[in-house]
């Protein structure tokens, strides 16, 4: 066994995962073909709210290749209710959530019937032979109207569209003073209402499920972020003993929270495969994904900030409405609540109150989407800081400096009751302004304003702290979350000295195979190449809580290190025993045990061999060096950073161009800087896309008019700028690796940076807000004070699936 020359942790390793991904040897769920495999297709409701008065599948069953057609009535006794594990209050209203609608549909896209056929094409063909009659019910779409007295109800049985109201008050919690008093005494008050538009996670790999049943055990392959949670919940929902369910998440093509779910389709595929006794596959179309996969964001934020004339903030009041959609999905109720703890951002607010009401509407259910609650909160506070700066007539960067926690003030107990362990906002900001050329851009901005240029320049600032490393189990318990937040790792020391690492995290693009190998190699002194990382199969990795919420490295990565330390501790004892010296005389460096002051050495490989042979071990010691560890962090971790965006706004057309984007993030210690930078880039892309491009739009009947990639606009390479990224490094003090997490940082910080930049460019023209996404029309209307009404009708011409194309409208004269 050779020692690694340079430390593995911190090294810019190229990824192990790439070999299969760049050659097309990847194992996507939809690649699976099993003997006799059947295909399921789902019929989805075209209406948003209706009673199903009749549904007839008799013709569908007669179609070629069809084996089975089922309605909600047919599975009503078996399907259970889709799980929601986060009842945020004791009195939270939660409707039953059937996988297949039984007598009512509550959003357009909800599944109402299924067909199982020999081919996917035949299954889809048969859907058109199913006859459904709907009796329309009033459609509830607008959250503010939904909570008015006498409003039409999504779920009449519940008696209200308000699912729950959750409050945090710093005066009550003893973490700060009373916000009403702060507001009453304020020298300056700024009140704003912001809208977080509805987004669609839009992972590139459509979801796919394959179920192979047998009487003894059933195996599900699913394109999921959460194989462990999925197994547990399938068992709970369908009453199948958990030990008889095996869930495998093979290669998964992105998730961004969108695959942190237990889906109707997973339940139904399981159900029909067991009923027929043959393997069944369901793979969604992109439009199905847009209609029925959960959406994200969708909040109305009413914010009040109180301050003194000198710019010192004195209070923050947050009133949110959060759209749950038609049902409560897995962790949906808690998503907006996550924002409660970071709405104060990096600032020293003495008084704070956060109130959030979760509201039902007849729309696709929402749930986690990259950042989950924290982008919304960061957007709110960072937009408000800019508004306050404008109100006070000070530079927004200076206002932030005046109010943020100084580096010497850490650890810092915040008004939300958290303790920020470490950070250096000054360092990150100084580096960012330097890379950005802040002062020069401010000068150019002043010149352009003075000249009345058609194209105006704006500078957007966003600082943030993320709350990740999700999460200390006790914290989760206090928040009424049904599960823990620990993570586990197991190391198998093979007889040849090679290593298998089993992790409970479930990567879907993050590069855990590479990063975890680096941690193991570093700890054990084995070559990076000798470590094989196993994950995503509940029969191999039987325990874990999967990947979401920037938790993988800060919890799972630490578990890996702890497991390695256990291996090493035992190896140390064995080595001392074999070299016949006291343990204190043995030291370990770079994969080798040596006896101090002598030339006697043993490599870890030799120790492994000896431990496996077990011919000569200390009395009572179990053979082998395998070890596992479970890490439950004592605290969350708090990465932070400063993002600066310069936009050019064409005041004639409203078009926004990002001229430069600089971010300096502090994510603590870094295992692999290349992977970290990649995570930041991708996060920036999604955050910028929220600011400029993406929006899930429903028309007044509740139809999603952005159900294709022709209508839901994802940016291409042309539409995004070059990013300038850098890092500062303040190690986390709450875990032995000093890591904080990086998965969501870019997304969280970038959205407000872009919108602040747009508003900054045209504030002198009387603009104090532009609703997201800041489309050219919205920007133009804001500049020219034409109101903010935007039609919900899909694109005129062009958009595939946006125009109601029928045979008449499509002449047979030809197509492009």
């Amino acid at each position, binding site marked *: 066994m050779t020692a690694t020359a340079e430390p593995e942790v911190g090294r810019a390793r190229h990824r192990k995962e790439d070999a299969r991904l760049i050659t097309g040897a990847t194992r996507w769920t939809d690649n699976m073909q099993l003997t006799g495999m059947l295909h399921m297709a789902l019929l989805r409701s075209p209406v948003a709210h209706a009673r199903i008065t009749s549904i007839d599948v008799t013709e569908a069953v007669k179609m070629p290749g069809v084996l089975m057609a089922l309605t909600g009535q047919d599975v009503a006794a078996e399907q259970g209710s889709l799980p929601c594990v986060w009842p945020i209050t004791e009195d939270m209203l939660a409707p039953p959530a059937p996988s297949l609608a039984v007598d009512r549909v509550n959003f357009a896209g909800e599944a109402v019937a299924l067909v199982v056929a020999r081919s996917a094409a035949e299954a889809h063909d048969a859907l058109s032979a199913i006859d459904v009659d709907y009796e329309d019910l009033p459609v509830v779409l607008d959250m503010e109207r939904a909570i008015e007295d006498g409003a039409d109800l999504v779920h009449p049985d519940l008696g209200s569209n308000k699912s729950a109201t959750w409050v945090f008050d710093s005066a009550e919690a003893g973490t700060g003073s009373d916000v009403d008093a702060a507001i009453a005494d304020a020298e300056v008050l700024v009140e704003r209402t912001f809208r977080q538009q509805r987004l669609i996670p839009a*992972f590139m790999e459509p979801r796919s499920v394959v179920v192979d049943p047998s009487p003894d055990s059933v195996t599900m392959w699913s394109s999921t972020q959460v194989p462990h949670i999925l197994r547990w919940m399938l068992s709970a929902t369908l009453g199948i003993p958990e030990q008889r369910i095996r869930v495998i998440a093979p290669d998964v093509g992105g998730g961004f929270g969108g695959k942190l779910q237990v889906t109707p389709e997973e339940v139904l595929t399981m159900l029909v495969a067991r009923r027929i006794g043959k393997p069944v596959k369901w793979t969604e179309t992109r439009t199905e994904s847009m209609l029925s996969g959960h959406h994200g964001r969708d909040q109305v934020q009413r914010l009040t900030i109180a301050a003194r004339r000198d710019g010192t903030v004195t209070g923050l009041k947050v009133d949110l409405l959060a759209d749950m959609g038609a049902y409560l999905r897995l962790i949906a109720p808690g998503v907006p609540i996550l924002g409660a703890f970071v709405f104060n951002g990096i600032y020293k607010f003495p008084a704070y109150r956060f109130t959030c009401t979760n509201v039902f509407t007849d729309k696709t259910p929402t749930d986690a989407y990259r950042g989950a609650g924290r982008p919304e909160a960061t957007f709110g506070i960072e937009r408000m800081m800019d508004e306050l700066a404008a109100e006070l007539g000070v530079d927004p960067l200076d206002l932030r400096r005046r109010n943020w926690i100084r580096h010497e003030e850490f650890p810092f107990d915040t008004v939300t009751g958290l303790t920020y362990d470490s950070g250096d906002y000054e360092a990150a900001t100084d580096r960012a302004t330097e890379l950005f050329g802040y002062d020069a851009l401010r000068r150019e901005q002043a010149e352009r304003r003075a000249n009345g240029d058609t194209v105006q320049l704006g500078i957007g600032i966003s600082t943030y702290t993320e709350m990740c490393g999700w999460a200390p189990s006790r914290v989760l318990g206090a928040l009424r979350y049904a599960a823990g937040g620990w993570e586990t790792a197991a190391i198998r020391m093979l007889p040849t000295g090679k290593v298998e690492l089993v992790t409970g995290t479930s990567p879907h693009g993050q590069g855990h195979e590479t990063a975890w190998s680096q941690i193991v190699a570093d700890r054990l002194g084995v070559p990076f190449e000798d470590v094989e990382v196993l994950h995503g199969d509940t029969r191999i990795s039987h325990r874990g809580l999967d990947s979401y919420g920037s938790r993988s490295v800060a919890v799972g990565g630490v578990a890996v290190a702890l497991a390695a330390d256990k291996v090493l501790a035992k190896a140390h004892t064995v080595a001392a025993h074999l070299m016949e010296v006291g343990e204190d005389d043995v030291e370990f460096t770079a994969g080798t045990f040596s006896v101090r002051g002598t030339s006697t050495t043993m490599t870890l490989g030799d120790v492994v061999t000896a431990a496996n042979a077990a011919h000569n071990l200390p009395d009572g010691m179990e053979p082998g060096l395998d070890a596992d560890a479970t890490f439950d962090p004592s605290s969350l971790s708090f990465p932070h950073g400063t993002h600066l965006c310069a936009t050019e706004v064409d005041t004639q057309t409203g078009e926004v161009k990002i001229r430069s984007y600089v971010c300096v993030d502090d994510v603590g210690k870094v295992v692999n800087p290349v992977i970290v930078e990649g995570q930041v880039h991708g996060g920036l892309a999604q955050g910028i896309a929220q600011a400029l491009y993406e929006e899930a739009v429903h028309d007044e009947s509740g139809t999603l008019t952005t159900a294709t990639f022709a209508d839901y606009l994802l940016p291409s390479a042309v539409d995004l700028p070059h990013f300038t990224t850098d890092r500062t490094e303040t190690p986390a003090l709450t875990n032995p690796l000093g890591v904080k997490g990086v998965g969501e940082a870019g997304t969280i910080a970038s959205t407000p940076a872009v919108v602040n930049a747009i508003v900054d460019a045209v504030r002198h023209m009387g603009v104090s807000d532009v609703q997201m996404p800041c489309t050219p029309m919205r920007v133009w209307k804001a500049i020219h004070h034409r109101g903010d009404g935007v039609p919900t009708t899909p694109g005129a011409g062009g958009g595939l699936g946006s125009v109601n194309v029928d045979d008449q409208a499509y002449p047979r004269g030809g197509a492009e």
Partner: protein
Amino acid sequence: MRITVTVDGMDYGDEVEPRTLLVHYLRERLGKTGTVVGCDTSNCGACTVHLDGHSVKSCAVLAVQANGREVTTIEGLARDGQLHPVQEAFHQNHALQCGFCTPGMIMQAIDLLADNPDPDEDQVRHGLEGNLCRCTGYQNIVNAVRDAAHRMSPGAGPDAERVDETKLVGRTPMHAGGGE
């Protein structure tokens, strides 16, 4: 209908329904699952393959239209265990995360380099406008394509001789100021 098609250098003869998309034929009949389907509207480009030496979205081509033609997929790029320079550049530049868009992205990058062997950043971005990636923010993809261009440029070493698919070579470059 009966079709014969050459895929990654192998000849295949098959009976297909006219409605079968080329991508489904590749995946389900030939097991070429390296090529994937990401959308219904030919926006995402994940299914990009080369048809007679030009990049196409295999979800917008019928299998019957490939009759008598030559298809190259991501699985046909590596030769004798050696990665194509564009594949290698994607690895070296961390130009992929989940990897779902990667096969299409690589196939389009090769096509773009055939038209423009030394593209600047802007030209790379435009050349990839038909391929969506949700993970990388594209910056490393752009870097990878430019890196690959240098690896493949004349005099760049043995790899330069390995520009695949003779049909791709010798295309007339775009007119000056071209692209979009």
